[in-house]
């Protein structure tokens, strides 16, 4: 049975597979229905209809975790033009668009503009920006044609991935260069000035390798505010990148990739000028981001397992919210997968990461850091053992031990038990502990939230201040899941979870003080980060796929979430307990993919998201559809309609008050793709 070997050429997928204790069952699955074909003639064989087990099904069948895989076909047929819109199809994931270039994305609650409890990886490279504890989705760009799959894990992944994989991991895996040979040209145009062009070419790199290189341009005009005014959130993006893969021998594979993305955009920010009227005003600010990254990976197959060594560096220069943020992340990761030792399947690894940042205020209203620059080191090691207790029962135990510069040593253990039969049915249980380590912003961010009248004094400025005493946020997570294949055409997946959070971030009122700013005294009403909140979240997720015929597939999903957030009696926080209203209590979705006459595809999806009560966002439905035609094998013409059911709707409200929301409007997008 092949495990990590198979993934060797795929790249970072190997780590994922090994880490979760996945077992690829391609050959084995096929053996379950032995058929004597030796006597058949060639003509007979050519008429046999075959089913191919997709990589997606293999990955899912024996994973003791709540995983949803978005595959290449799902990506193509969604008609989406960006990664956040793709994530909408994963059940239990909350995707809410704030503006043309801003999203709030989380899993199982705690959604915010910079959701800090979900780890996002591209080919094993963390795109989670530790300075802000979140992902700059506007700066993240991947040609969707180059994505092999997106693995979305709901629940903690701390044991393997470490800090910040608290309630989810989104892992984007791009295609091996061997699978993108030839030229690809696409052009997209649509409502709201949507415009996108991609030029890509891939070929041989010697007799043992392949490469691809691409250049992409994308732009979008600004959206409207709910009152109809211009939101000044348009953007332009230029992206150039490459990937090369070599299989030097049966044992050694090497992969190198890199890219440079430049984003030129705008955002309307709510800013505070404490000294001058009007104190509070919405202004159009620049949002510029230049990021570069380079990653190299070496996979080695051993007689009893495999090793992988990965090194990456990513640098970002970003102008946002009136500040300049410079960051550089260097990471080196080693993992070793050992198979075939008794009943054990062991993965262990080491990781060292060094992050340097520098935040400089560029305007009077900036978000600033009281300690403007810092270098932070993170060292971690993990080990995980999958023990085969019997033919159908496996126990996985493991832990991560890490040292960070904020809270010192942290331990994140987990255990999973899975019962799997025939690759068709499995039942699993999991218990895990995970943390979100404090980050630079928790310690030293500073920005003004509002100017409020203070009786007898005049005006006071509500100022958010980081707290160097801030501790890690912690979760204990318990889950159970069940998967079944009913016949050859239907697969179903159910998960229930309970998450107990403690020492969650709270907003505590500090003692008012008078500061002198711009030569005038100013009353400051500080709001300090504390750890005085707790939460009990529980919920249920279900999804299914029904292959009605070979040409028609239906996907359906449902997720529910109950959050109860409380604060200590000693806390002065009245905002955090209302955080449960930032996430929808239910989401329901349905997707249909129909292939007509071989060269016409007809797709549709509908998703309903219930209201976000705290943010004043009513429940909304979203109907998307796509029609594609292949006049030639190498050519595809498609027309996608998004939000067809309403003129426009809002999906979120950035409650940090920094970013103003615009509406998500109905749109139609046309695309042409050529391969040669």
């Amino acid at each position, binding site marked *: 049975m*092949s495990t990590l*070997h198979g993934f*060797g*050429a795929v790249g970072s997928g190997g780590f994922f597979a090994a880490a979760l204790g996945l077992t690829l069952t*391609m*050959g*084995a*699955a*096929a*053996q379950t*229905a*032995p058929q004597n*074909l*030796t006597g*058949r003639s*060639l*003509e007979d*064989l*050519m008429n*046999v*209809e*075959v*089913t*191919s*087990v997709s990589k997606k099904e293999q990955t899912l069948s024996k994973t003791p975790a709540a995983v949803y895989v978005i595959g290449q076909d799902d990506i193509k047929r969604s008609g989406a033009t960006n990664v956040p819109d793709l994530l909408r199809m994963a059940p239990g994931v909350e995707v809410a668009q704030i503006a043309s270039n801003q999203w709030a994305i989380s899993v199982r609650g705690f959604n915010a503009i910079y959701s800090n409890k979900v780890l996002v990886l591209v080919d094993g490279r963390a795109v989670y920006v530790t300075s802000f504890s979140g992902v700059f989705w506007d700066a993240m760009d991947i040609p969707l044609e180059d994505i092999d799959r997106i693995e979305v894990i709901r629940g903690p992944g701390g044991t393997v991935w470490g800090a910040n994989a608290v309630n989810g991991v989104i892992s984007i895996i791009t295609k*091996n*260069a*061997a699978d993108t*040979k030839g030229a690809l040209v696409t052009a997209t145009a649509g409502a709201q000035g949507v415009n996108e062009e991609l030029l890509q070419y891939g070929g*041989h790199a*010697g*007799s*043992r*390798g*392949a490469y691809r290189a691409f250049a992409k341009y994308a732009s979008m005009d600004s959206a409207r505010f709910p009152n109809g005014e211009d939101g000044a959130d348009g953007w332009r993006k230029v992206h150039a990148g490459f990937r090369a*893969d*070599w*299989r*030097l*021998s*049966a*044992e050694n*594979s090497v992969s190198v990739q890199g890219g440079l993305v430049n984003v030129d955009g705008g955002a309307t920010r709510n800013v505070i000028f404490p000294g001058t009227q009007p104190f509070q005003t919405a202004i159009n600010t620049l949002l510029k981001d230049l990021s570069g990254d380079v990653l190299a990976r070496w996979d080695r197959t051993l007689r009893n397992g495999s090793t992988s060594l990965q090194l990456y560096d990513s640098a970002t220069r970003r102008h946002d919210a009136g500040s300049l943020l410079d960051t550089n992340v260097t990471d080196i990761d080693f993992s070793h997968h050992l198979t075939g030792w008794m009943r054990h399947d062991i993965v262990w690894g080491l990781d060292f990461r060094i992050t340097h940042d520098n935040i400089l205020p560029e305007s009077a209203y900036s978000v600033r850091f009281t300690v403007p620059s810092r270098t932070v080191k993170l060292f971690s090691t993990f080990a995980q053992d999958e023990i085969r207790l019997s033919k159908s029962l496996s126990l996985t135990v493991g832990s991560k031990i890490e040292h960070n510069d904020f809270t010192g040593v942290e331990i994140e253990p987990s255990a999973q038990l899975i019962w799997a039969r025939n690759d*068709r049915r499995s039942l699993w249980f999991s218990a895990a502990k995970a943390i979100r380590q404090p980050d630079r912003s928790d310690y030293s961010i500073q920005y003004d939230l509002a100017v409020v009248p203070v009786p007898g004094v005049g005006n006071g400025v509500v100022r958010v201040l980081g707290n160097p005493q801030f501790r890690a946020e912690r979760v204990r997570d318990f889950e159970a899941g*069940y998967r*079944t294949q*009913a*016949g*050859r*055409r*239907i697969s*179903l997946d159910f998960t229930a979870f309970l998450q107990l959070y403690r020492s969650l971030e709270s907003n505590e009122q500090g003692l008012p003080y008078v500061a002198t700013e711009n030569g005038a005294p100013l009353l400051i009403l500080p709001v300090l980060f504390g750890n005085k909140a707790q939460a009990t979240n529980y919920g249920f997720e*279900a999804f*299914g796929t*029904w292959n*009605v*015929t*070979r040409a*028609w597939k239906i996907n359906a999903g449902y997720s529910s979430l109950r959050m109860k957030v409380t604060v200590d009696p000693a806390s002065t926080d009245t905002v955090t307990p209302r955080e449960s209203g930032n996430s929808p209590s239910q989401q329901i979705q349905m997707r249909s993919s129909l292939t007509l006459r*071989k060269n016409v595809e007809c797709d549709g999806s509908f998703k309903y998201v219930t209201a976000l009560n705290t943010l004043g966002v009513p429940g909304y439905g979203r109907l998307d559809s796509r029609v594609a035609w292949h006049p030639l094998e190498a050519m595809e013409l498609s027309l996608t309609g998004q939000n067809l059911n309403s003129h426009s709707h809002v999906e979120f409200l950035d409650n940090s008050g920094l970013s103003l929301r615009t509406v998500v409007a109905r749109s139609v997008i046309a695309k042409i793709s050529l391969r040669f």
Partner: protein
Amino acid sequence: MKSRPSLGFVRGVILLTAAAVGWDAAAGGAQPPAAPSLDEYQVKAAFVYNFAKFVEWPPGAFGSATEAFSICVLGRNPFGRMLEAMTAGASLNGHPFVVRQIAEAAEATSCKILFVSSSERLRYRAILTALKGSPVFSVGDTEGFTADGGVAELRLEEGKVRIELNTRVAKEEDLRISSRLMSLAHSQK
């Protein structure tokens, strides 16, 4: 696949409902009686085995009259033990079949049929160059295999396996492909 949507729909609804109430034992038992389609690699394994009968190797390819007929798999084996099961006890013109798993092309020169796994697709050229001068019928199942110098490519088209042959390479290696196989395959010159 011929299926009647109306029946499928009814069955689907029943199965969904059954599973939702945790009653899937019933659903599991309600599988279609005869599987209308087979696993991709089961069928591909049968093709690999069948090629032995439709190809003639040059005289001298076998060292002796009883030398084994080696079917080799290079790279990740997608067949599990299916090839072994098919060839167990069988022989061709006195040559008993043997299935061998190999890691490098250098070990393949004594193979009669070599299946090159898609796990090796990045180095098809290096592998196929190393085979030059050896009468090995190479089979791959990733696009570009014959273009890179492989003899036969198995590809899926609308749920059926199709064969593409590179007759130039076959001729160079002195492999004589039967007209019956030629007539069923697409040929690449």
